[in-house]
């Protein structure tokens, strides 16, 4: 089911969490709401779920106006950052909850629970309690619980935010595969651009309660609408007041057309990449990312003077 959000506004006291936000989320897509903490993305997700009422604006899910529907009647699955596991129920009990509320026959509930636990690779933990599970397992259980009732829309609020880096990586790839299997319209909130780029078909960048840009990961990276999006989606450095990606700069040992002079301050080796910090005489600092081979060819060492210019077709953004 597609989700259409029109002119949503939400204030908490004097703080504007969302100001006139409108987005379209196509049916069956996997969309990331990406932005810094406190930018309003979680509020947007909670309004879509019906857990928070908007001050103004409408939410449509699958073409019906859901703005005033309670969460029980929106047919959304919601996954919380801190799992919200029912602690006094087993894993199977958690997953069965929504089905039991819908008074489905016992045999059908059991079959569906088994099916979902298999889907999230948790069959062997059916009789455990949430306290006996790791964070990643709890979140997989929470996902199975949300999917059990066959929601039209799956909403995940920083689903991997409380997990350690390794588990996070695994679950990302797994969420992507799961979505390819289940095809339910999925929206997840994250402040991690790498996570959004890796998992999502489409990214909505939200900052200060406003939508900065909507697009595919490639579109956002290659054609950022503004300096904020450019800075949020990848590394940037500044050359003559213009933001540019450090890997879109080239270095020369002699002046080239439209290049500028800068002195090497520091050279940091990060495996295959080399990060070169430069200082332009009285015109600020910048850094450039080059390969190890390039660094060796130029014999980059602190103190020498080099010449910098953006490569042809470099992505830039005005210093907003």
């Amino acid at each position, binding site marked *: 089911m597609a989700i259409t959000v029109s002119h949503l506004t939400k204030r908490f006291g004097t703080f504007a969490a969302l100001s006139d936000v409108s987005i379209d989320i196509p049916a069956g897509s996997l969309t990331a709401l990406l932005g810094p903490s406190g930018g309003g993305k979680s509020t947007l997700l909670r309004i879509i779920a019906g857990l928070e009422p908007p001050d103004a604006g409408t939410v449509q899910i699958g073409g019906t106006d859901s703005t005033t529907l309670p969460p*029980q009647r929106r047919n959304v699955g919601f996954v919380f950052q801190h799992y919200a596991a*029912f602690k*006094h129920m087993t894993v199977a009990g958690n997953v069965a909850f929504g089905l039991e*509320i819908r008074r489905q026959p016992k045999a059908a509930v059991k079959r569906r629970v088994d099916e979902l636990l298999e889907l999230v690779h948790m069959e062997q933990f059916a009789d455990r309690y949430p306290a006996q599970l790791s964070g990643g397992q709890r979140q997989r259980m*929470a996902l199975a619980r949300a999917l059990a009732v066959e929601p039209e829309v799956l909403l995940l609020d920083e689903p991997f935010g409380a997990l350690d880096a390794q588990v996070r990586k695994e679950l990302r790839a797994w969420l992507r595969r799961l979505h390819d299997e289940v095809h339910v319209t999925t929206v997840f909130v994250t402040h991690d651009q790498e996570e959004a780029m890796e998992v999502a078909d489409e990214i909505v960048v939200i900052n200060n309660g406003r939508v900065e840009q909507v697009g595919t990961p490639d579109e956002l990276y290659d054609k950022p609408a503004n300096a904020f999006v450019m800075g949020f989606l990848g590394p940037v450095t500044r050359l003559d007041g213009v933001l540019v990606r450090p890997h879109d700069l080239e270095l020369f040992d002699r002046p080239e057309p439209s290049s500028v002079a800068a002195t090497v301050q520091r050279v940091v080796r990060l495996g295959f990449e080399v990060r070169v910090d430069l200082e332009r005489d009285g015109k600020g600092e910048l850094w450039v990312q080059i390969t190890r081979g390039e660094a060796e060819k130029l014999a980059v060492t602190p103190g020498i003077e080099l010449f910098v210019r953006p490569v042809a077709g470099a992505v830039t953004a005005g210093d907003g």
Partner: protein
Amino acid sequence: MPSRGGRGALRAVAVGYLLALLALPLGLICWRTFANGAGPVWHALTSASARHALEVTGSVAVVAVVANTLSGVGLAVLLVRHRFPGRRLLDALVDLPLAVSPVVVGLALILVYGRTTGFGAWLAEHGVKVIFALPGMVLATVFVSLPLVLREVAPVLEEVGIEQEQAAWTLGASAAQAFRRVTLPAIRWALAYGVVLTLARALGEYGAVAVVSGRLVGKTQTATLFVEERYQNFDQPAAYAMAVALAAVAVGILLVINLLRPREGS
């Protein structure tokens, strides 16, 4: 971290303090009560007036526990889950019964519901007798034990948070279903503890009930009033027997709940 010797001394002081304050008087009363064996005790507790006093105490306590369990959970949900003007005032007011002397509570109830006041007279005309009758005693007991369930439940409710309930809502559970299937199991031990404290308080209440009951032997005499009345009439065996019975019931329920309660963190 105190040294080993410091800890030992601290422990000795704590145990000594509790012994002097609690165990010694209780132990002495038990000893005195059973000085002539269990026969006289049983006899004293099964006399007509003792049985009646126990019945009165029992019915007052049951009504008070039910009323305060419902209002305690309701108020806890209201105070923890909702923000509204006057919330802090309500939060403070709820503790009033712990601060005000029960005798004052009793007198206040007489002022409101007594025959000589407008409301009390109006109630009496319609056949409702509050003061010197069970309703007044129930009111007094409810009042003095009002915050006990609330104060046990509220912190747990706060700690559990609202996300489990919200998860239940998104899974289709109504507010009532979410409360019964998710919230109630999460607060069940705090609730049980609050109920037990309320019950113990209701069984033991003396001051407020003494004022509003009129102490009519065989009519509005509760178990605690019975103890006082028997003692004043030099029937010490009966007074001690009932006192021990009351203490035993209170200690018994506290023990049961502590045994049932799961260990912290499990």
